[in-house]
Structures are given as C-alpha cells and as structure tokens.
C-alpha cells in the first residue's frame, strides 16, 4: 500500500499547523472510511499524498447545535450521531434519513459529515440534502476562517474547493421555516439489485390552500455537481400540488439531467428511475398518496 507519514493531532491548532506544513501533499483523516479504502485501492487521486493528519480525536469538532435559528454540525459528527439527533430529526428530517441510510452500521459509526463532504463522491448521501438546505461549509486554516456554500464548495466528482492547509470544521444551515416538509429517497446501492446510486432530496413548503411556496429539488449522483434543478422547481412553485404536477416535475428533472450530463450508456435507464424517484419524493413530502402504489402487500 501507498506510503505516507502520519500524525495524530491533539488539538485543532496542531492539526492546522501540520496541514499547513504538509501543504498540497497533506490531507486530513477523519473516520477514514473513504481515505483508507482509497489508499488500498491505489486511487490515483491520492498518489501525491505523503502526510496524513489524523483529526479523529478532536472531539471538539463533533457536535450538533442550534444558535439563533442556525443549525451547526461539527465536521467530525458521524452519520450515526446525525441520524439519531432529535434536533436534526425535527429541524431537517431528510438529513437524518440520508445519514441513517449510509453504508452499514459500522460505516455510520465511523464516517463523518466532513469526510462525506470533502470526499465529494457523486454518490455521497449528505450532499444533495446539504445543498437543498443551502448549507455553508466553514473552513479553517492558520490564516483564518472562510465560509463557502456547499453548492460551490463541491466542484466536481471528488473535487472540492478545499485549499492546502485548510480543514472543514463545520457545516451550517438555517433552520427551514416552520411548515417545511422534507423527503430523501435513494435506490438501495449496497444491494446487488439496484441501478447506479440515484437519490433525491426534496424540501417543500406549502402555504394557505396548499399552494407551493418553496420547493427545492436536488438529485444525488445525477449531476456532476449536486445542485438544485430550478427548471423542475418552477413547475411546482405557486401551484397547488397534484400527482400530475409532481410527475411533470420529475420528468423535467430527468430531462435536465440529460441536458447537463449528455447521453451516457446509463442514461436511458437513469431517466425513468430518477423521474419516478423525484415524483415519489415530492408527493411524500407533500403528504399526497402516490398513484402507483403497491398492488399487494
């Protein structure tokens, strides 16, 4: 396996110093669920790494709290902690859902939200949800702190705006307005029998008379960078939610995916799947019955 040096940081300060010294050739190690696999598989993206800075013991970076309507997650918060958090379950239930479906129990106990973000896999489950929440990443380096929206932080598959010497310390988002309903659905990818890793995050708020006031639709593993699909959102905004509109929005979203990514071998199959997934998620968030439900128990 790949050779590298390893330091265990005992404080944030120490971690930042080590990362800054290592520069381009250094990276952080949180839960290690992505990084170690990458090293073992001799991932080309990691070939230049010579120093690994273990931040796994910085417990001060593992927290979930709310301040002035803003929910903040420390970068080292595990998927399991998020899935079980009563705050998240109430404030952004689809984030809890997404985290509860990551990998296996063991992976959820070790994998962190910061790692999920920084690894920026097209299939990372928290990404579409965080984008739908319009979350921000808090980045620290010896030079100071900056904040970047998640939607800009992720620049492409496995590419982020993380600069040498920087660490993600927190992810934060404004608590969605009361009355917001959310839904996250993914195709079971750890099962043998599933297509790609498509998922969809929906945040929906209806006003008086059931008119859709706010709608955010973010597909996962469908676009090069997770993003809201506004063309599909338009179909619903200002309208009363119906099964037909949800279907239309789903199809629009699928068309947009094709427009942005072009035709690939998998496209003909992804299209109907993401369209259906989106329709279902919108209807679930909106509390409507899907027409195409199970014929028998």
């Amino acid at each position, binding site marked *: *396996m*790949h*050779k*590298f*040096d*390893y330091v*265990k940081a005992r404080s944030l300060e120490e971690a930042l110093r080590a990362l800054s010294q290592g520069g381009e050739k250094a990276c952080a*190690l949180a839960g*290690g*669920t992505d990084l*170690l*696999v990458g*090293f*073992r*598989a001799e991932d080309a993206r990691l070939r230049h790494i010579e120093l*690994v800075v*273990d931040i*796994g013991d910085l417990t001060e970076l593992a927290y979930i709290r709310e301040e002035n309507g803003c929910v903040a997650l420390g970068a080292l918060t595990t998927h399991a902690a998020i899935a079980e958090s009563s705050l998240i379950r109430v404030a952004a239930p689809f984030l809890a859902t997404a985290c509860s479906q990551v*990998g*296996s*129990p*063991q*992976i959820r*106990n*070790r994998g962190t939200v910061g790692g999920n973000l920084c690894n920026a896999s097209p299939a990372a489950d928290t990404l579409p949800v965080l984008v739908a929440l319009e979350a921000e990443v808090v980045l620290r380096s010896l030079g100071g702190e900056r904040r970047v929206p998640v939607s800009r932080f992720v620049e492409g598959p496995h590419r982020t705006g993380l600069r040498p010497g920087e660490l993600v310390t927190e992810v934060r988002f404004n608590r969605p307005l009361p009355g917001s309903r959310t839904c996250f659905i993914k*195709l*079971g990818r*750890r*099962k*043998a*029998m*599933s*297509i790609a890793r498509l998922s969809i995050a929906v945040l929906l708020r209806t006003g008086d008379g059931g008119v859709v006031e706010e709608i955010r639709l973010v597909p996962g593993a469908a676009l090069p960078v997770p993003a809201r699909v506004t063309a599909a959102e338009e179909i619903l905004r200002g309208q009363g939610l119906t099964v037909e509109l949800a279907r239309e929005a789903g199809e629009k979203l699928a068309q947009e995916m094709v427009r942005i990514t072009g035709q690939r071998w*998998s496209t*003909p*199959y992804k299209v*109907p*799947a993401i369209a*259906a*997934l989106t329709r*279902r998620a919108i209807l679930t968030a909106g509390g409507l019955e899907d027409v*195409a*439900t*199970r*014929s*028998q128990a």
Partner: protein
Amino acid sequence: MEKIQLKINGRLYSVKVNPNWTLLKVLRQILGLTGTKCGCATGDCGACKVLVNGEAVKSCTLLARKAQGKEIVTIEGLSRGGELHPVQRAFIETGAVQCGFCTPGMIIAAKALLDKNPNPSREEICEALQDNLCRCTGYVKIIEAVELAAAWLKGGTNGASGECATGGQVVGKGRPLRDAVDKVTGRTVYMADMRLPGMLYGRVLFSPVAHARIKRIDVSKAEALPGVRAVVTYKDSPRVPYNSALRFKGHDIPHDEYIFDDTVRYLGDRVAAVAADDPETAEKALRLIEVEYEELPAVFDPEEALKPEAPPVHEGGNLIKKLEAAAGDVERALDGADYVFTDRIKLPIVTHVALEPHASLAQFDAAAGKLTVWSANQNIFATRIILSEIFGLSVNKVRVIKPPVGGAFGGKLEAILEPVAALLSLKSGKPVLVEMKRRDIMVSTRTRHSAVYYLKTGVKKDGTIVGQDITAYFNTGAYASSALNVPSAMMDKAFRLYRIPNLRVTVYPVYTNCPVAGAMRGYGSPQLMAAREIHLDKVARKLGLDPVEFRRRNLVRPGDINPRFGTSLGNCRVLDCLEKGAERFGWEAKSRQPKGGRFRRGIGVAAGNHGNGTFGVHVDMTTVALKMNEDGTLTMFTGTQDLGQGSTTMMCMVVAQVLGLSPDQIEVVEADTELTPWDLGTYASRGVWVSGNAALKAAQSIRRQLIEVAASMLGVKEEDLELGGGFAYCRHSPDKKVSLQDIVVAAQLSKEGSREIRAYESFASVAGPNSYGVHFAEVEVDTETGEVKVLNYVAVHDVGRAINPLLVEGQIEGGIQMGLGYGLTEELILDKRSGKVINATLKGYKLFRAKDMPRVEVLLVEEGESPGPFGAKSIGEAATVPVAPAVVNAVADALGVEFDELPVTPQRILAKLRRTP
C-alpha cells in the same frame, strides 16, 4: 517506523509500524494472527472484521495507529481456553461453515450484533451481515446460525451437546465439516497464512493493453530496488507451451500458453513478475518495470472474431474447432413441426469470486533438484504434470500440495500462478509466495465462457417437442484453456433433460482478446440451461401452456434412452423434482395471482441437469488408501481435493458406515502428490460418484480383513461376523466379540504372518448418469426502478441419496446465490474499445448479499442411482444450473416481457418496460 501498543484479545502488544499500515496488516503479517482473513483489502468483503471496542470493524480500513488504546478482539480471542463461543458452535452445528474463509468475519459481525441486540430479527441479522460476503452458503445457514446462537445465549446455554457415540447409522445423517472447529476458530492455515523461513513475496505485472507485441521491456530499475530478489519476463520463461486446463498426462487439448510470452493477448495478460523481501517492495518494483508495447488490433466479440477480417489472436485463426453433436434428423423434424420458434440469447462473462484470493507458494531446492509447490488448487496431479513439463523435471521431483482452500468453484482448477511462483523461486533460490489482488483475480484468472445461443425448436400443437437445433458461439478469451471441454460437456447435457428425438447442438469456441474463460461450476450447463430454459418458457407461453405443464409433457423419465448414444439415462428423477416442487411452491395458486401496479409479482420455473464425473469422456479414476491403527482408529489417504464443500467429510462418513466407526475416528491425509494416491482432480462433480465409491471399495477391503482376523480369533465363521461400535461381533450372539484394536494388534503381532490391515483401492467410474434439479422462484419487480426482489425460492434436486444432507443443502443454497447473480446481477463489463474490465471490484461486480437472498427451501428426491455409493450422486454443480433461468422466467412473467440477454439488470428491465408501455 514507530512503536505503538495494541491491546488484542486482552493482551498488550508492542509493535513497530509504518504509518500507512492497516490493522489487518499488523494482525496478519506482524503478529501472525492469521485467523483474520483478507479477501479484498478494499473494504468490500468483510472477511477481515475484528471487534474494536465491541464494534465489528473491517480491519483493512483501519490504520493500526488509530486502533491504539482500543479493545481489539480477533477470532482467536473468541474461544477462551479451548471453549468455543456459542456463535462459533452455532456456525458449526447449522452447517454455516463451508470453505470457512468468510467465517471469522461473519462470526465477528454476528458477535457484535448479538452483544448489542440479543433478539435480532431476520432483517436485523441481514443488516449486520450486509457487508460480509460469502460465496459458498447462500447465507441461509449463516442466518440460521445467528438465530440459533441468539436462542442459546438467551437460554443461558452454550449449545454444547454431548452427542457422538461410535457406530450406528452415519450415511444420510447431517454432519458438519470435519474441519469446522478449525475454521470457526481461525486456526485453518490457508495459502496466504503460510510462512517459510526466508520466504519472498511475489507479485505479477499484468498487461494494460488488450493485444500487443512487447517491443521493449526493461527491468533494470526494478532489479536495482533494494529488497528485490528476482524479476522474470518472457526472456526468462521456458519456451514450453502448455494448457492450464490439462487434466492428465497426454491430454490432447491445444497448448497455447506460456508463463510469459512476448505477445500479450488480453488486458490483464501476464507480463512479468517480481519476488522481493516484502509485498510492498514487490509492488513498487512492478511499477518500475518499463514496457513498450506495439499495439495490435483486438477483437472482443466471438461472432466478430470469426469474420475473415478479424485480427487473429493466435496463429491459425480464431475458431478453435467446430464441435457438433446430433441425434435423429433435425431438418425433417423441424419441417414436420406444427410450430417452430427461434431465439437468440446472449450470456455474460461472469467469474467465480471465491472469497479466498488466488495464491501459490513455490520452493525450488536446487541441490536436490526438487520443486515443491503449495497452492490453492483443485487439480494438483495435473499441475504437477504441467510443472514437470515446463521445467523439464521428472515427475517425482515435483511435489504439489493443496492446503485448505477458501472456495474455488472451478476458478482454481487451472495452473495459473503455480508456474509463475516456480519460476520466481528458481531464479531467486528462495521460497516465493505469489498472491493476487482481488482486481487482478477478477480479470486475470479464469471466467465463465460468455456465449451467444441461437435456438430453434419445433413443437406439436400439444406442446410436444419434436426437434431442436442449437448453435452457440463460446467466447474462450485469449487462451484455449477449456475451450473444447466446456462446450463438449455442455453438448452432452442437452440430450439428457427433455425427450427430444431429433436434436443437434453445434458450438464454435472462439478466441478473442477477452479474459480467459475456463472451468466454472456447471461447466457449460448453466449456459445451456439459461438459454434453453428461457427460450422454452417463451415457447410454452406462446402455445398458451403453463410452463410447469409444458415441462411435465417433455421431461425425461427414469430409464429413458439417450438418443445420441442409445444408452440408458439411469434413474433420472427430474419429473419427481418438478411435481414435488410445484406442490411445495404452490405453483397453481401463485399462477392465478393478478398482476398490476408498480410492484409486480411473477413466478418462474426451470429444470437443469449436470453430470457425475467424466465417464465416457476420458479417464475417471481415483485411489483411496486406508490404514488401521493399533487403537482401532483409521487413517485415510486421498488425492481428492476438498475445497470446503466437504468431500473428505463425505468419504469419512462412507468409510465409517462400512466399518461401524464414528467419522471422528478417521484422520485424513489429503491432496499431496507425494503422500497421497493419484486423483483426477476436483471437478466434474465427481466427488461422491468416484471418490465416494473408492472410499467404499477401500473400506470394504478393510472390513474383509478385519473379519478374517476376527473370525480366527473368535473361532467363528466369517459370514457370522458383523462390525459395529468398534467391535467385530457375532450376529447371533453379540457378546461374542473382539474390539477392532485387538484385531489390528493381533494381526500385527501374529506369528503366522504378521500383517498390516490396510487397503489401497483404485476405483474407475463405470457409468455417467446425471443429477437433476427443478427450481421455482417468485419475484417482485419495482417497475419504476427496475429493482427485483426475489421473494420465495424452492429448489428440488434428484441426488440419488444424500450421504450428508446438511452439506447437500449447503451446496444447493450456495448454488442458488451464484445462480441468482448469473440471472440478475453479475457481469464482467468490458469497455468495447479497450477491452478493459470496467467493474473489476467487489463494489462494481454485484454479488447477492445476505439482504438480497430470498427465503430458500431445499427438497431432495432420494430414489437412488445404483452405481453410486449407497445410491448417491452429485450435487456440487447441478445446484447452480437451473437458478438463472428460473428467476429470469419469473421476472418475465411478472412484467409480461421477454428477455434475451443476461443478466436481467434494472437497466435492462427498465429498457424493456419502456418499449412495452
């Protein structure tokens, strides 16, 4: 290097580690705790799980440094003071252990679950095991084991039972593997667990291009790297061609492969190899080998490869040899048929994925001129011939030994790494252990032949088949390997399932620049049955006939005559399988269920058959030696290679039954070309049929000798004596008896001609009937995502007689897991331009996991097949034959569409649905 402390199994270890070392590496390589297995090193198989502060963690994904200060428990730490943990005991008792390679990781995962959740549901068990792969058991008995352990733990018992008296009925009673205790405790020493003093680590460089001549190869930088002891390329390789699938001396098959050649013929072909002091150095050295390729045109499709303009993979063109088998007059039959239906069905490249990676250890003793090779291998005697021919050594100077094998399924039948390891040892003068990475195993060992089938079936209005014409193109890849044997075996099976008086099968085995196809469980039968059973289902539906009824009208009956050879098909009980299964499955009721909505249910059935050994094709012989010991115990010597399926357990049971012993009283010396008698190899489902019979023959010889001596000791007639409970006794007055140990000692010390009670018996097969199975599947398809859930599964098999029902069930359940993958998920996908396998990982290649498995019910038809020992016949391969078509037919039934390409993935399902709104 840095010193860290690890607390493992309650003991504190101080070790020097590199920062990049994983816990797995430290456990296995530094501390020698090899009970923890490595099946992938990339977090995909779960074989390496250990407990870290009570959580089951894949130790290949955890840095050793990060494990400091934590409580680590490995499989070795589970059984304190020799007392097995209830989970371990439950794995043994339920038959959840076969090859045992997944077992330590499974047990650890189960233990972590039960510590936290003493009352897990089936779903929770599957969830906890979802990232633990097993290729042998279909997870059925593993899930049962966890349930049983939970019950024991709740009840405060540890499941220890006081059974096992000697004697009594042995054959027909379920019995765990004889080496199960070693496997659940991590004591089994597999290939990669072996160490010899001064041993080097070998790694192989594989070609990055599909077809090329090597213009220049420069190994000087690799050789200069400190720690590198030998580098070998085609320049060092003896110019002796061989066929890795050789079965016996003089076997007439194309010899087209070299250890290394100056031409590479597929992306993944061997280019060079390195031996170094440690694995890391060997891997680094591979990257320092400079190779310049002159690329040649390549072809990946078997039908394309037959066109005149296709680039030849070997001199002489891409068709290896047209094969044909026929009975009756096919043209006339099809002309006279009421209807003729045709189909083209395409089958994928799949691969074995035995959990244990391929590995071989070679030691060349230059002074003695002797080569010893340990290898995870299914055919040590043929490998010995191959090595002796390549290196020009006399056969008695080559010794091949098979340690316990972690699953094989045909993938370890051929000599792949053994010649490389030998060459490295020859050049370095040291023992060399060559191991392969999972990625390379999936590409550069062997695969199942992909194929394209053209089928044409003539039927009468009532559904009677009158004639059938089958043509298939078999993609054998870059080397011939089993290019002739697999299609020939396949053709033979075609004549033994349905009453088709006019039948012709034509096969074109074709070279391409694809990974090499070879033996894989079923040896052609899964291909034939997948294509034909899917085709016949379409025929039945077009005739408006129920698929079960259609088969009922056409399946062979006991005593039917094989139209090709005019010989009897034996006691072929496939119709019994059909009836028994349809009843248990509830076919009638289920076929009346309405269909509609997003989730649609469907049912499918398929029949299949496979052989018992190689009778009629070539030699099929083995020898078993037995020696009685002074205390009445026995030692058996057999060249049979147990791969975890339990063949030596079965042989012990046969011997024990004849001699009135307990199988525990028999020790086995297995699979060593120097110590054990000759065997043809573990393939062709010949274990029970041939080795079982040899064991029976040898045991009967021992029995005669024991009775002869006993008769003179007791002064009675031989025919009045019986063996049982460790004694020879008088049938009429059982008190008149003498113990086996006294007999043995008496024979040894006899003044009239002292002798050893021993037998050395060869058995050559005398017939080749088939084993049959009929499978039933019920699925639910999500029409939105294309996902299939297999809900219920019933498998019925005609096994003659089950010597060990527990292991027979285990074979069938494992065969179902493999077949479901063939039907629904598994495929090595080749990039059409480069010929690169794009999903050569356990993430990209989708195996059925515990979660994906349906409820499986196994039923046996035990009507006896007379030449088999106690009427038994094979199951190993037959088990996987009917699976894929059964489940694909069920999906087709659910959706009312037809499929003509496997696997039926969600992608293909959605594509079909979009065409039929």
